[in-house]
C-alpha cells in the first residue's frame, strides 16, 4: 500500500506572531519551526498502518529548502520517502494543486493531511485534494481502521461523532485523536540525515500571495474585582454588559 502524508512546516506553538510593519507578512526572525501538530498525528497513524500491514510512507511538503528539516523529522520517525515541491506556499488552493499534480502521477491508496495548519488555518487542503483527485475525503477524522480495500473512519461532527465507511483511494484529514506522535529513535535520526529528498519544480507557476496581515487589538486592560466581593462580577456581566 502507498501512503502519502502532507507535511506543513509552521512556527512553534509558543511563537509570538509579529507582522512586518507594512502588514505584508510575518516577521520570521528568530522563529523556531515545527512540523504542524496535526500532521504529526497523521504521520503517527500512517506509521501504525505500516507496522500492522506494511506500507510505503511518502511525506510531501510544498515549500522552500528550509522546510526540508521538517521532512527529515518525519524520516526520523520512520517515513520512507520524501518529496519537496519547490514553491513558496501562498494559499491552500495552490498547495493542494501542487500536491494533486504529484498524486495523480504516482497514485496513492491513502493520503493524509492534518485538519488544519496552525499558521494559515485554512483547514482546506485535505478536502481540496479530494475534489481535485475526484476521490472521497473524510475530514476531522479521529479513528481509522482498514479492511482490505475499505476504511472505517470516525469523524467529528457538531456535538458528536459519525462513523463512515469508504472505499480507497481516500483522503483523510487528521484530528489529534488519530494517532499519538512518535518520538524518533537514534537509528531513525542517523538515517534521516542521509536519506534523499526528491525536489520537484513548481508546476503551477505560483504567484506571490497578496495578503495583508494585522494583529488583534490588545485588551484595554483588566478590571479587577475583589475576591471577597466576587458576586460583583456577575452583577457587571448581567447589568452592564447584558451578557445574560
Amino acid at each position, binding site marked *: 500500500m502507498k501512503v502519502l502524508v502532507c507535511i506543513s512546516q509552521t512556527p512553534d506553538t509558543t511563537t509570538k506572531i509579529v507582522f512586518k510593519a507594512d502588514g505584508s507578512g510575518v516577521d520570521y526572525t528568530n522563529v523556531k519551526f515545527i512540523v504542524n501538530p496535526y500532521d504529526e498525528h497523521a504521520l503517527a497513524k500512517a506509521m501504525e498502518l505500516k507496522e500492522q500491514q506494511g506500507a510505503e510512507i511518502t511525506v510531501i511538503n510544498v515549500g522552500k529548502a528550509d522546510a526540508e528539516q521538517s521532512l527529515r523529522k518525519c524520516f526520523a520517525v520512520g517515513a520512507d520517502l520524501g518529496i519537496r515541491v519547490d514553491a513558496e506556499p501562498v494559499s491552500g488552493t495552490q498547495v493542494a494543486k501542487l500536491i494533486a499534480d504529484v498524486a495523480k502521477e504516482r497514485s496513492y491508496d491513502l493520503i493524509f493531511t492534518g485538519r488544519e495548519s496552525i499558521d494559515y488555518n485554512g483547514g482546506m487542503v485535505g478536502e481540496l485534494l479530494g475534489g481535485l483527485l475526484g476521490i472521497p475525503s473524510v475530514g*476531522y477524522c479521529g479513528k481509522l481502521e482498514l479492511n482490505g480495500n475499505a476504511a472505517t473512519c470516525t469523524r467529528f461532527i457538531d456535538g458528536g461523532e459519525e462513523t463512515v465507511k469508504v472505499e480507497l483511494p481516500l483522503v483523510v484529514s487528521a484530528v489529534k485523536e488519530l494517532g499519538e506522535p512518535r518520538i524518533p529513535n537514534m537509528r531513525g535520526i542517523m538515517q534521516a540525515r542521509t536519506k534523499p529528498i526528491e525536489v520537484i519544480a513548481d508546476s503551477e507557476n505560483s504567484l506571490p500571495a497578496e495578503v495583508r496581515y494585522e494583529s488583534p487589538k490588545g485588551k484595554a486592560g483588566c478590571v479587577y474585582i475583589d475576591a471577597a466581593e466576587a458576586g460583583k462580577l456577575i452583577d457587571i456581566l448581567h447589568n452592564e454588559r447584558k451578557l445574560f
Partner: protein
Amino acid sequence: MSVLVYIENWNGQFKKQTKELLAYATDVAAALGHELVGLSIGSASDEALRELSAFGLGKTLVVRGQAFDKFTSINYANALETAVDHTGAKTVIMGNTYNGKSMAPRLTATLDASLATSVISLPDLSQGFVVKRSVFSSKGYAYVDLRNGYKVLTLTVNSYSIKENPAGFSLEDITPLVAVNDKVSVVGSELQSGKVPLTEAELVVSGGRGLKGPENWGMIEELADLLGAGTACSKPVSDVGWRPHSEHVGQTGITIGPNLYLAIGISGAIQHLAGVSSSKVICVVNKDPEAPFFAAADYGIVGDAFEVVPKLIEAVKSLH
C-alpha cells in the same frame, strides 16, 4: 446574478447560526446587487425552511433523497455544484461548521474558485473582494482578496448579528447532475445529548489544572447550568481524563469565540489563549496575580477558586 447560501440543518433543525448566516448572505447579496438563493440538502422540512423566511430566506432550492439524508462531503459538494449551475451564482456562502468546512473546499476544487474559510467580515468590494479571516490560531488576521471568478466563503459562528428580514419564500426541488458516489456511506452516529455544543455556546465556563481534580467540577457545572453556558477545559485537564476531549479548547483543541469566556484556575498559556482569544468578554479567576491570563482578560478576580466560584453561584441564583 445570484448569491448562493447553503442552509445546513442538524437532523432537520436550524440553529441561531443559520440566522446569522442568512443575515450575512443577505448583506453580501445586497452589496453585490445580486439575488439571494438558498440551498437546503437533506432532511429539513418545508415548514422549518419557511420559518427562516423571516430572516431573509427567499427563493430556496432543495435536494432530497436517501443519498442526502446523511452528510458526505463528496455528494453534498456535488449537490452544491448543481445549485451553482442552476442559479449561475458566482458567490457561494456557508457556515464554518465541520460540514461547511468539508464541502466548501471540494466545491472550490471543481469550480476552480477562490476560497476563504473562517471569515469574520463582509467583503470589501472597493478593492476587489477582500474578506477578513483569523489566522495563526487567532494571533492575527489576514485580509485576502478572492480573485477568481467563483468565490466560496465560510462564515465563523458568532461573528454576525441576526436581523429580521421577511423575504418572499418559494421552494424548488432540484436533482444533482452528478450521480451519487456510493463508495462512501455513513454507517452510524453518536451525539452527546442535552449539552450546549461548545462551538455554539454563547457563554462558556472553563476550568484548568487549578481545580485540582475531576471531583471539583461539580461547582463548574452548576455555574454553567445556571447561566445556560457550555463547559470547557485546558489541555492538561482533558489529557489526564478529568474532562472529555470534546471540551479541550486551544491551539490543538477547538477554537471558540463566545460572548463570555470565564476561565477558572487556568494559567493562560499562549496555546490556550489561541483557542479563546476571540471571545468578546474574558473573565479570569486565578489565585496567582502573575498568571498570564490576566493580561488577556477584561475582568479578573485574584483569589482561590474554591472560595470565589461559590460566591459567583450565589450571585447568579440571586438574579432569578
